[in-house]
Structures are given as structure tokens and as C-alpha cells.
């Protein structure tokens, strides 16, 4: 069984520190089964506040699934999630936000998409206008604010999706390949928003296939293989000197089909 922790600034491949009191979010023995298959297997993680943790791995390794489990969108088959030291519940999700690979745009204007998030998160009415204007400016969407969100380009929609997540002022932001299939300019705009969120103190968990993006944004890296954590460490160390066979194979562009054990 692989156990890993991101509660560190040195390098580890197997270290159990999930109960660390400093962890903002932690998972203990997280498993998820579907269709008779174990898709997430005994994942132990601890996410320290203020860090940007990158999750990488081949397609089908369970990255997006892990993100959904950590965010509480899917109920794990077994294992426990802790939010600030307590079992994760629905209330905890009010302090979190997620951006999906394919942005889900409500059938409303750009501004109305942001207002909806503020409304459901219970932000007082008096605050909403200022936060809306601030976030629209931050995401450079001023000229689009009255347009239907669904007519925006892919890059603009993803910028709006990130803005809608940020307007909730989340303590932790989950990003599931937010720049997949975007051009460099759109990618840069999204990365600037993510950097801004970090500077505001948000903790980031980012799923990406882009090693360059991992280096630009990430502090820690979790490498998944076959639903298990194959390796963890600082982004630079894992990308430059991968220790696990799965990470070495993936980073080297080789196929590695046998699950690590």
C-alpha cells in the first residue's frame, strides 16, 4: 500500500502523516470501487494550507476521481476525509470550490453566473455587488459581463469558471485540468488567476498533464498510478528525479501498464 503526505517540504515516497494537525484536508485509507474495480486504492494524503499540490499521472490513473473524492462530490467506498481535523461534511464544502475540466455554464449572463455563486454561498446582499465587480475585473471579463455565458469562447468560459470559484473566497480550490485544450494565451490568463488565488491564501489542488504548468504553479506533486499514490515530493524533485517506476515511465514517455505494488 502506498501512503503519502504533502505535509512536507522535503521529499518522500511513502510516509504517513495524515493525522497531522496542520493539514487543511487529509485523506486516510481512501478507496473507491465502481463496476467491480478498485479505482482509488488506499490513498493517504495530507494537504497543508497555502500550498499548491499538483496531481499528475496517466489517463485513467484516478486523478479526477481523487479530486472529486477529496471535494466530497463522491462518497468513498472506504476511508475517511478530514477537513481541518474533522470529518468532512457538507458544510465543509462551503469553504471549498472546484473548477471542472469542462466548465459548466449556467444559462445566464456572465455576471449572473457570478451572482448565482454568491447567492447560494449566502454572501450578504450588501457585499455582492462589490465582489462581483472585483471578480469580473480580476478575470478581465468586464466587456463580457452582460453576454450569455454559453456564447463565450472556451478560454473565456474557463476564466469565468475560475472566477466563479474564486468569488466564493474558498480556502481550498480544486482545479481539474483547467487549461486542457486551451491556447497559451488562455492558459496564461487562467494561471494568473490561480496565482492570484494563492497570493490571497487559498490552497490549491491542481490536476494537470502539463509538466511545465506543474513547475510554474506547484509546490508539491502527487503522482498517481492505477488509483494509488506512486510517489510524492516537491514538484522539481519528482519531475527531475522520479523514484517510482510509474513516474519514470510516464515522464520518460514510456508505457507502463502494470500497476505498482
Amino acid at each position: 500500500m502506498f501512503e503519502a503526505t504533502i505535509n512536507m517540504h522535503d521529499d518522500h515516497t511513502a510516509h504517513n502523516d495524515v493525522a497531522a494537525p496542520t493539514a487543511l484536508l487529509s485523506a486516510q485509507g481512501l478507496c473507491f470501487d465502481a463496476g467491480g474495480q478498485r479505482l482509488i486504492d488506499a490513498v493517504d494524503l495530507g494537504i497543508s494550507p497555502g500550498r499548491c499540490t499538483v496531481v499528475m499521472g496517466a489517463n485513467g490513473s484516478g486523478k479526477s476521481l481523487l479530486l472529486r473524492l477529496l471535494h466530497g462530490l463522491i462518497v468513498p467506498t472506504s476511508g475517511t476525509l478530514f477537513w481541518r481535523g474533522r470529518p468532512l461534511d457538507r458544510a465543509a464544502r462551503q469553504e471549498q470550490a472546484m473548477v471542472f475540466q469542462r466548465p459548466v455554464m449556467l444559462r445566464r449572463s456572465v455576471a449572473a453566473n457570478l451572482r448565482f455563486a454568491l447567492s447560494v454561498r449566502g454572501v450578504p446582499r450588501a457585499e455582492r455587488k462589490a465582489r462581483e465587480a472585483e471578480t469580473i475585473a480580476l478575470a478581465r471579463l468586464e466587456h463580457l459581463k452582460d453576454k450569455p455565458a454559453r456564447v463565450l469562447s472556451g478560454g473565456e468560459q474557463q476564466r469565468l469558471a475560475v472566477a466563479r470559484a474564486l468569488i466564493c473566497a474558498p480556502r481550498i480550490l480544486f482545479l481539474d485540468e483547467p487549461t486542457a485544450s486551451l491556447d497559451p494565451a488562455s492558459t496564461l490568463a487562467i494561471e494568473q488567476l490561480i496565482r492570484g488565488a494563492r497570493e490571497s491564501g487559498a490552497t490549491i489542488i491542481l490536476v494537470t498533464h502539463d509538466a511545465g504548468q506543474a513547475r510554474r504553479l506547484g509546490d508539491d506533486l502527487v503522482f498517481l498510478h492505477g488509483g494509488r499514490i506512486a510517489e510524492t515530493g516537491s514538484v522539481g524533485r519528482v519531475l527531475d528525479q522520479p523514484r517510482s517506476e510509474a513516474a519514470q515511465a510516464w515522464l520518460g514517455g514510456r508505457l507502463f501498464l502494470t500497476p505498482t505494488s
Partner: protein
Amino acid sequence: MESFSAILIEAVELIVSWDPDVIEIIVLSLRVTLTAVAAACLIGFPLGAIVGAFRFPMRNGVIVAMNTLMGLPPVVVGLLVYLMLSASGPMGVLGLLYTPTAMIVAQTILVTPIVAALTRQVIEDLYNEYAEQFASLGVRPLDRVLALLWDARYSLLTVALAGFGRAVAEVGAVIIVGGNINHVTRVMTTTIALETSKGNLQLALALGLILLTIAVIVNGLLMAIRGTAARAAYV
């Protein structure tokens, strides 16, 4: 018997002359139908949205029932409403039989399952798209229903117009509970049935032409709504 062209000319003359009897029948038809559709939407939209946006025990049974009720035979509805509102029925004391209100009740019962079943499908499709985002934002159940209804507004207008099309063309139920009383409960469809049987084909055809015109207008509105919604990528 007069030729078809002669009947058609007389029918058109009846329409363009704004015959007061014809106008009265049209106004009553629209009043009954629009009220019934509004009532059906008030019941059917939230009902369909709740079934579409939530999972609960026996949900599939509810969906089967809703879909089955879409095909309710109007005469059966008319008979049931008649039994309820007749002097010996449980609601006979209200004295509603042979009134426009009875016709509204019958049409509401006919149209509500159509509105609810179509709304359920529209909302379920939309919710499948929104589910993860809503879960991530922590949208509460009431907010979920309201947001889905709002975001599906163009599709729901189409649903309402489909209900209107069904109601305005209905004859079986309203003739049983309304009685087709002149100047009281006579609507376009019941008048067409009556006047055809009497051989007064001019009036029947005039009202038939008006019904067809209404159908054209409704379909034109549907196309316009779809076009507007498509331009804003709302469908």
C-alpha cells in the same frame, strides 16, 4: 348542400365581420384555455422539476405514472370531473357544473400531466449537466429547483405552448362538464362539433379556421422562442 368554396367564403365573411357571437366564443375559449394552462404550469413546473432534480424511492413509478397520464382520454377526464361536480358528487355543493370553471378544472387535469412530464424531462437533462457544479457550490434543494426552472425557461415556454395546443383543441372533456350552453360555456371546439351536426358549416368552418390560425401563431411563437434561445445558447 352549398359548395365548399361558398361555405369557405361565408366563413371568412363571419370572421372579418367580427361577428359578436364568434368573438364571444373565441374569447371564452382563450379565457378557459389560458387559465387552465396557467394552472397546469403552476402545478406541473414545480412537480416536474422536483421529480427531475431529485432522487427518491418510487421515482421511476412516479415518472411512469406521469408519462401514462399524458395520454389521459379527455372524455374520461370529463366524466370524472362531471361525477365530482354533479349535484350528487363530493364537490356538487360548489355548483360548478356547466360553468367555465368546470371546464378550466377539466382542462387543467388534462394538461397538468403533459406539462409535468415534459418539464421533468427538460429539468432532468439540465440537472445532469449542472449536478456536479451545484454539488460543488452546495446549492440547497429549493435553490436547485428555482435555478433549474429559471435556466430552463425557454424550454419551459415551449412546454407551456405544447400544453396550450392540447387544451385549446380539446373537446371531449369540456363538452361533458361545460354542457356547451350558448353564451355560457360554448367554446370553439364544442361549437364546431355542434354546428357541424346542425349543418351550419359556415360557423363551424370559421371557428376551425380561427383554431388553425391560433395553431400557426403558437408554432410561430415556438420557433421564435427557440431561435432566441439558440442565439443565446440557452438550449
